[in-house]
Structure formats: structure tokens, C-alpha cells
């Protein structure tokens, strides 16, 4: 059939092409003939003009020879067969060629010259003058058309060949294009229809075009797909229903089961006939049959999702997530319902496990004795444990979800905010020590808090605050520190007593001397009074004078006059010394304050050397190189005193081990050198002894608690440990440099601005 259509179209097309080509060929030949004729005319006109120009002067001056040459030159042209030049009288000046012969065309032109009227010499030089044109002769040409005709014959042949070739090429291209664009695609469509008619509904016509045939093929494919889908939909839907892992139950408008999938049957343990046409509510436990969702469904609620139970055939309650939706006809009438139920036994089990886990976690968190607070990225409290409730006197249910920053606790919020920012930046835990707050009873308390980040990016970071109320511990530490201080004072008491004893003896001896002198002087004075009365009464007894003279001599008045002022000075010096020791002790034993205070470090060290003098004076000389530019240091003075004392006592003990002096006697001594200096933002104190140094094997243990090399009763092993703790409290450091048999230098460095500034 395709061949038939193509053949007919081809024949019609060839006929049209042939007719068109013949018409165009005839038109072309006609036009070509006219064009060649016009071209010949133009050529001859040009030839005549050129001839007229060339021949103008010879005609003007009657130069027949030249005219003859030019005429013969014209006839030598291809198509010109005859040429004649005539003067105005019509007499032939020159001619060439033959006028005979058929098929010739005649041409005639004028020989024109320009003549200047009344020429004179001025115009010869200057140019110009009035010029007129005169015809002075004619030129006659006869042109053969043989060449033109010959060319036309050639053109006709060419046109004929072109027509034939054009028809052949056009036919071939037409047939090819027809097959490519129309017949071929139609054949493919016909083949597709035949295959579909043969039952191959899955066949798709290959479409690679967007023209009318392409759109036809696309529509055809769409129609095939729709046809195929309508035919296979039931089987397709059946496959879907049966392959569902969830249970599917289709009810009619009366709630009777009309269809059940395999998953439902397997779940409930029924065979399909056992359920078909049964009331769907029979699958529900009795207590669920009157529940709200079922009533809502029966009253026309379009869809609902509920958690319920199905009763299996064996009577087991299976928890299900049931999705109930309505089937409506085109008129909106309820035609039935679809229950899609998901077995949620595993989910229920997981939920239970999760709840148990949460309970355990809650118990675990509740068992933490520390403060535990969780703050979300938005600053709201997410967790507030029992110790937090006790510490701050706020119940969790009253504060959960509230802003942590406005929870009403009187805290140093600036420090907390600063720490939170640092934690957020570094994403590392940040510890806050000695954070003061107001306890529920209105008294001041001390907290230590560690802020731990949790969560994602910086802006989504929440915080877990883990802390402890260390108020009691701080009080105990303070008391302990004071006790230790008193203990050390106790230890120093004997030495101090000895230190005081010597000046007191000065004072006693001198006072005794002054008492005796005063007593003897009083006796002498009485005798002088008697003498005075006798002098007044003119009964002067020479014996009295001699007695007074004798006693005065005996008393050595001159000697007393010199010794008494010395005795008074000595007594005064002794009293001053005692006062100095007492002042130093008072300064040393001052309980201190809870906050750091600015202290003169040089003075503090000097005080310590005074109270500890008895510890070192027998074994060492004390050299103090103090930096006068060392400014006030912000510190806990009591603790610094304790540190310096420990270091001096240790230094004295170290020297004592090497100098081996007898108790209470002076011998060869070592040297304790205490140096202070300012090192940038730190105060540096060096306590250097000339003892035996610290053996290498114990250098790593000297700051360990209870480590000591002293004999039992001489050291507790707490001295350097306390020094280390005190330095940590000050954000300072304590280190040592030692050489065996040469001595040890302990170096402590304390921030000038105290711990807070250093931390910042």
C-alpha cells in the first residue's frame, strides 16, 4: 500500500516538476535571447560611440586615410560585417565589409564635434569660451546575428540538459525525502498498529520527531499506554495490594469486609473466606468498638489515623497504627472505607525500651550529687536536677523552659556569660572557680561550675553546667589554713619566745639596775633633804655632810650619771625589739580576707624572716635582695606568708643538714638569699639556700602530698604541697632549681594583678 501512495505521489510530483521546468526553461530561453540581443545593442552603441570619438578629428580635418583605418578596424570586430562613414552630405568617406547576407542588424551613429564660438588667443590660454556641438558625419554598421543565434542554440542545449538533470535530481531527492519524512514514519505507525492489534500493548512507536507525524506517534503511544494501563490495572492493583507489608482491609459502606490482603491475613491468622463479608469491628477488641474514631469514621469523617489493636484469630491483641480513609463515588456518596494498618509491635517495644532508658537516665542524673543544669542554644533551661533545686531553692517544674539568664539566682552572671562565650568560641569546657552566689537563706555561698558545650554549630551550641557548692569546703579550707598558720606559729613559738627572751632580759637587767640605783639615790636624796633642813635651821652637822660625802663617793655618782642613760636606752631597745617581733607575728598571723588584697611583698617577706629568725639564725645568714620597684601585689597575704615561711624553714633545714652546728650555738653558717623582682606582669620571689640540693630521684615528688625527707616529727610532708596549692589559687607558679651539694632555689611567680586579671 505504501508503495502505491509513494508511486502516485512520485508521478504527480515528476509531472509538476517537468511542467514547471519546461515553463521555466522556455521563459529562461526567451529572457536569455532578449538579454543577448540587448547586450549586442549596447555593445554596438558603445562601439559606435567609441568610433565616433575616434573618428571625430579625422572627419573634422578630412583625414580620409585615418578614417579608412578606423573603419577597417571596426569591421575587424567579430560580429560587424560592414562599416561606412559618411559626411554631412551623405557621401561615403570610407567603408569596409559587405552589406549582403541574411540575418543582419543595422546600427547608425552620429559623429559629433565640439566647436568654440569666436575663439581667440585669450581663451586658448585661459580656457572657457562658448562651445556648441556640431554633427559632422554618420557611421553605419551592419552586424551579423549568426553569433547570437549560435550562442542561443548553445543555451537551449544547456537548458535542456539542465532540465533533464534537474528532473532526475528533484525526483530522487523528492522520493528520498518523501520516504524519510512521510512514507517511512507512516510505515512505522502502520507496523505499530499491527503489533498492537496483534495484542502487543507494550509496544511503543519510536518517536524522534516533533512534526505532525511525531505528534501523531506520541498520541498513539499515549493511547496505547492508557489502553494498556486500563487493561492491566486490576492485576497491577492486585499485585500492589498483595505485595504490601501493611495490612489492607477494604470495607463496604456497611462496614463489611470486602477485601483483605495477604499481609492482613498472615498477621491475624485468618484465611480470606473467614473474613470476607464479616463486620470489620469484629477485628477490634471489645473496648475499642465504641471508641471515638470508629464513630467518627462511621459518621462520615473522611480520614483518620489512630493507634488501636486488632484481635488475631488466636485472641492476641496486636497493636496497630490504623489509617482509615473513605471511598467516595462520583456523586460524593460513601461507597466504602479502606483500612491500612501497620503492625507496630516492634515500635511499641522500642518505645518501651526508650522509656526505660529515659527513666534510667533520669535516675542516673538524679543520683549525681553535683549541680547539673542543661541550657539550650536559645538560653532556655532543659534540665535542672535535684541538687540544683536544693542549692538554689528553685524547683525544676518552676524553672524548666525558662531563660537560664533570668532564673532569679543572684550570681556573678558577668563571669558566667564570659565563660559561656569562651566555651562557645573554643568548644572546650570552661571551669569557673569560686563563683559567689546568694544562697536561699540569704547568705553568701561559693560555687564551682564547669561549662561544657554540646550541640552542633556555634550558634546552635547548648551548655551543660556541672557544678558544686563548695561553700562548706571553702570555710573548712579557711579554717584549716588558719589552723595551719596557728600551728606554724606554735611551731615557731619556742623560737619566737627565745627571740623575745633576749631583749626582755635586757629590759629586766637594766630595769633592775635602774631600781637599785634609784633606791640608793633615794637614800642619798633623803640625806640631802636633811642637810638642806639643817642649812636652813643653821644647825649644820658636819657628820651628815661627811656621811653624804661618803655615800656619794660610795655610790659613784659620776658612774651612775653615765650608766643610767645607757641602761634606759638598752631597756628601750629591748622593748622595741619585742615590739617588732610582736608586730611581725601579728602581721603573719593575721587571718586575712576572703578577697585578694594589695600587699607589699617585700615587707611581708621581711615579716616572715623576723618570725622565723630562730629557725635559721643559727645555721644561716639571711640576705635579702629586694626590688624596691616591686609594686603592690594582689594576693591572699596569709597564704603567701605561709609559702615564704615554708620555703625559709625548708632552706634552713637544708643548710642545717650540711653545716651540722650544735643546738643553740653558732658555728659555720650557710646563706639564705631571698630575692624579689618584677618580671613583667609577675612578681618573682626566689628563696635560695646553700644546702645540699635535692637528689635527682626525688625531684619529681617534692610537691606530692605527704612526701618528706625529714625525720618523723620534723615535717608533715604538707609544706610544699600547700605552697603548690596556694600558687595555683593565685594562678601563679612554684618551681625550683637545684644542684646537689650546691643548694636549691625555689622560685615563685605571682601575677601582680591577682588571679582574676591573670585569668582574663
Amino acid at each position, binding site marked *: 500500500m505504501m508503495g502505491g501512495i509513494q508511486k502516485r505521489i512520485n508521478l504527480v510530483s515528476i509531472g509538476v516538476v517537468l511542467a514547471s521546468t519546461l515553463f521555466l526553461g522556455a521563459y529562461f530561453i526567451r529572457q536569455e535571447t532578449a538579454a543577448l540581443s540587448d547586450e549586442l545593442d549596447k555593445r554596438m552603441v558603445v562601439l559606435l560611440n567609441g568610433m565616433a570619438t575616434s573618428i571625430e*578629428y579625422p572627419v573634422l580635418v578630412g583625414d580620409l586615410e585615418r578614417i579608412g583605418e578606423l573603419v577597417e578596424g571596426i569591421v575587424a570586430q567579430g560580429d560587424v560585417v560592414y562599416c561606412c562613414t559618411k559626411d554631412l552630405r551623405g557621401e561615403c568617406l570610407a567603408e569596409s565589409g559587405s552589406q549582403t547576407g541574411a540575418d543582419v542588424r543595422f546600427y547608425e551613429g552620429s559623429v559629433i564635434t565640439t566647436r568654440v564660438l569666436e575663439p581667440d588667443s585669450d581663451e586658448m590660454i585661459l580656457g572657457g569660451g562658448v562651445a556648441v556641438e556640431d554633427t559632422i558625419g554618420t557611421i553605419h554598421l551592419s552586424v551579423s546575428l549568426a553569433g547570437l543565434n549560435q550562442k542561443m542554440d548553445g543555451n537551449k542545449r544547456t537548458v535542456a540538459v539542465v532540465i533533464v538533470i534537474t528532473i532526475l535530481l528533484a525526483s530522487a531527492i523528492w522520493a528520498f525525502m518523501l520516504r524519510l519524512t512521510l512514507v517511512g514514519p507512516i510505515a512505522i505507525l502502520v507496523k505499530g498498529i499491527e503489533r498492537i492489534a496483534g495484542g502487543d500493548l507494550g509496544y511503543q512507536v519510536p518517536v524522534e520527531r516533533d512534526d505532525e507525524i511525531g505528534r501523531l506517534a506520541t498520541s498513539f503511544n499515549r493511547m496505547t499506554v492508557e489502553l494498556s494501563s486500563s487493561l492491566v490495572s486490576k492485576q497491577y492493583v492486585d499485585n500492589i495490594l498483595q505485595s504490601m507489608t501493611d495490612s489492607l482491609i477494604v470495607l463496604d459502606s456497611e462496614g463489611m469486609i470486602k477485601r483483605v490482603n495477604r499481609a492482613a491475613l498472615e498477621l491475624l491468622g485468618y484465611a480470606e473466606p473467614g473474613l470476607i463479608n464479616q463486620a470489620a469491628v469484629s477485628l477490634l477488641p471489645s473496648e475499642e468498638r465504641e471508641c471515638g474514631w470508629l464513630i467518627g469514621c462511621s459518621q462520615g469523617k473522611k480520614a483518620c489515623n489512630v493507634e488501636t489493636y486488632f484481635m488475631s484469630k488466636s485472641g492476641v491483641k496486636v497493636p496497630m497504627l490504623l489509617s482509615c480513609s473513605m471511598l467516595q463515588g462520583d456523586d460524593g456518596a460513601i461507597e466504602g472505607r479502606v483500612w491500612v494498618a501497620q503492625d507496630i509491635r516492634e515500635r511499641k517495644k522500642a518505645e518501651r525500651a526508650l522509656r526505660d532508658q529515659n527513666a534510667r537516665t533520669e535516675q542516673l542524673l538524679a543520683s549525681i550529687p553535683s549541680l547539673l543544669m542543661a541550657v539550650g542554644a536559645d538560653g532556655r533551661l532543659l534540665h535542672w536536677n535535684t541538687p540544683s533545686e536544693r542549692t538554689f531553692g528553685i524547683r525544676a517544674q518552676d524553672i524548666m523552659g525558662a531563660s537560664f539568664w533570668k532564673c532569679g539566682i543572684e550570681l556573678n552572671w558577668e563571669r558566667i556569660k564570659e565563660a559561656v562565650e569562651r566555651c562557645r568560641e573554643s568548644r572546650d569546657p570552661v571551669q569557673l572557680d569560686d563563683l559567689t552566689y546568694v544562697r536561699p537563706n540569704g547568705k553568701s555561698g561559693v560555687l564551682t561550675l564547669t561549662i561544657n558545650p554540646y550541640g552542633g554549630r556555634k550558634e546552635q551550641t547548648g551548655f551543660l553546667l556541672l557544678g558544686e557548692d563548695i561553700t562548706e569546703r571553702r570555710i573548712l579550707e579557711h579554717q584549716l589554713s588558719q589552723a595551719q598558720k596557728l600551728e606554724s606559729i606554735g611551731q615557731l613559738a619556742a623560737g619566737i619566745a627565745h627571740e623575745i627572751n633576749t631583749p626582755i632580759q635586757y629590759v629586766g637587767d637594766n630595769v633592775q639596775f635602774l631600781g637599785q640605783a634609784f633606791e640608793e639615790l633615794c637614800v642619798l636624796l633623803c640625806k640631802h633633804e636633811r642637810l638642806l633642813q639643817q642649812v636652813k635651821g643653821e644647825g649644820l652637822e658636819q657628820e651628815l655632810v661627811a656621811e653624804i660625802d661618803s655615800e656619794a663617793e660610795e655610790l659613784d655618782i659620776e658612774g651612775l650619771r653615765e650608766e643610767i642613760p645607757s641602761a634606759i636606752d638598752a631597756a628601750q631597745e629591748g622593748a622595741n625589739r619585742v615590739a617588732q617581733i610582736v608586730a611581725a607575728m601579728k602581721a603573719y598571723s593575721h587571718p586575712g580576707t576572703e578577697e585578694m588584697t594589695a600587699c607589699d611583698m617585700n615587707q611581708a617577706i621581711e615579716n616572715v624572716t623576723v618570725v622565723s629568725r630562730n629557725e635559721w639564725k643559727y645555721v644561716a645568714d639571711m640576705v635579702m635582695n629586694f626590688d624596691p620597684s616591686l609594686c603592690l601585689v594582689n594576693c591572699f597575704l596569709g597564704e603567701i606568708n605561709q609559702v615564704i615561711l615554708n620555703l625559709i624553714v625548708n632552706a634552713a633545714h637544708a643548710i642545717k643538714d650540711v653545716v651540722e652546728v650544735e643546738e643553740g650555738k653558732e658555728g659555720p653558717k650557710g646563706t639564705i638569699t631571698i630575692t624579689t623582682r618584677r618580671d613583667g606582669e609577675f612578681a618573682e620571689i626566689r628563696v635560695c639556700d646553700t644546702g645540699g640540693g635535692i637528689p635527682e630521684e626525688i625531684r619529681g615528688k617534692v610537691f606530692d602530698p605527704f612526701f618528706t625527707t625529714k625525720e618523723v616529727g620534723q615535717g608533715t610532708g604538707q609544706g610544699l604541697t600547700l605552697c603548690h596549692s596556694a600558687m595555683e589559687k593565685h594562678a601563679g607558679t612554684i618551681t625550683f632549681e637545684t644542684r646537689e651539694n650546691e643548694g636549691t632555689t625555689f622560685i615563685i611567680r605571682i601575677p601582680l594583678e591577682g588571679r582574676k586579671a591573670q585569668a582574663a
Partner: protein
Amino acid sequence: MRWFVILLLLAVALGQPARCAGSEHAKLAVVFPSQANAYQEAWSGFQSVVGQAAVSLEVMRFNLKEEPSGQILGSIRRERPDLVLTLGTKPAKLARDSLGDVAVIFCMAFRANELAGPLMTGVSMEISPAAKLSTLKRLVPEARKVGVIYSPALTNQMEDISRYCGELGLELVAVPIESESELPSALRSIVGRIDSYLILPDADIYSPKSVEHLLLQSLRYKFPVIGLSAHYTKAGALFSLDCDYRDLGRQAAEIALRVLRGENPGDLAPEEPRITELSFNVVAAERFGIRNQRQIEDEARVVFGR
């Protein structure tokens, strides 16, 4: 008697035409043959010199192309100007033939000797053949034979031309013809015998067509042609000597001032142009094999074909 003679001489002197002798005002009639630029340039030069002399001119302008000659002559006779200035040959001839009682200064006229009279003098436009031949000898030293074709009207000049040629070491080959139609044959007769050609201002045998023919033949047979003006040079002549038309006007003005101040025109000999300008055709020079082209180009006022 002596007093009588003195009074008679005084009366004669006072009875002479005024002619602005010593005065600063004069009436001038100027006659143009056409509106050609060359005449306007000459008139401009004339005015510049008179203006510098602080002479106030009352000018009457006439143009032969615009008014009949009789009407012009009537106006001149009626107005009686102190001086008539003619530009070109035709007004000069008209004045010579029709104005016998007015002083006339001609300018840019040919054949000045034929025009000069008791009340008429001026400046011709003719550049002496001697100057042209001298220039030829300088530009083309190898030139030996100069061809000239002339009409009977110029027969008188031929002796002078022959003498000039002799002085320059040139041989004159001269052919007289009666009309322009004889020119091609006359030219054919001397081609091959001449190595240069001098065109004379001869309107009887030269027309634009014949000059074109002459120049074509000169290029074909390689004999350089001395033209009459830059038009000829541009058309193919090797060189031409032109007048400086503005200077011609100035030259005529100087003569006119002398006449207005009392000199008799008949006592003043006609003058030739005192400034000539060379025009040169480079293409023609290459055709003729002229060697010192660069020098000539530097000298020429107008160079064609560069």
C-alpha cells in the same frame, strides 16, 4: 610778450584734462570680457595697488558678456572717466577702435604692440617665446630641434623666434598652414624631424580638438610640447609658463597711477608680464625620459601627475 607767453602756458596747462593730476580722486571705467577668474584676480591686484596709493576710485564696471559693446562705449563716453582699464584682448581692441579721447590701460591682452597708441598702453599676457625656449633648454638640455606650426597671422613673430632659437643653440622647424584642417598633415610632416614643439597662441589653427591631437601625437612620438598655460600642462604638455594674473593687475595699476599723476600713456611702452610661473607634468616627463625631474618639480609652482 614774456608775460603773454607765461599766461598762455598756464592756460594750456589748466586746459588739459584733469586726469587726477596730483589729486586723490579719479573716475575709472573697467571693462571685463567675461567673468573668468583670471580677470577677477587681475582686477583684485589692480585694486590693491591703487588702494595702497591712497587714491580714491569711482569705478564703473562693464562686462562684454552682459552688455552690448555699443552700450558700454556710450556709457563711457557719457561718464567721461579719467581712465579706462580693459582686461583681456577683446575689450582692449574695442577701446583701441572706439575710444580715441580717453586714456586706456589694457591688461592681459595679446599683441600689445598692435594695441599701444597715444592714449593707450598697458600690460600684455604674452610670455616671450624666448623665455619659453630658454626654459626648454634648461629643462631638456638635449633638445635640438623645435617644431612650430603657425598661421599667417604669426608670420611676423617667426623671425624673432628663429633668432631666439639660434641664440639657444636650437634649430627651428616651422611649418605654416592656412587652417586647422592642415594641422594633422603638417604635424606628420615634421614628426621625426623635431624633438620638441612650441605651441603659439594662434586661435586660427589651434582648437581644443587639434591641441588634443597634437598632444596625443607628442606622447606617441615622444617630443615634448611647450604649452600655453597650466591647462596644456595638465592635458599632456611637458611644461608651460603662466602669468601671475594678480601681478598683471598690479603691473597695470602702477602704469595707471603714473597716467593719473600726469604722465602721457603714449610715452609709456607696453610691458610684458614680469612674473612667470612654471607648471610641470611628471607623467609626460617620465614618458619623455626627462632626467632632472626632482629639481624641476621643486622649481614648478604646479606639478601634475605627482
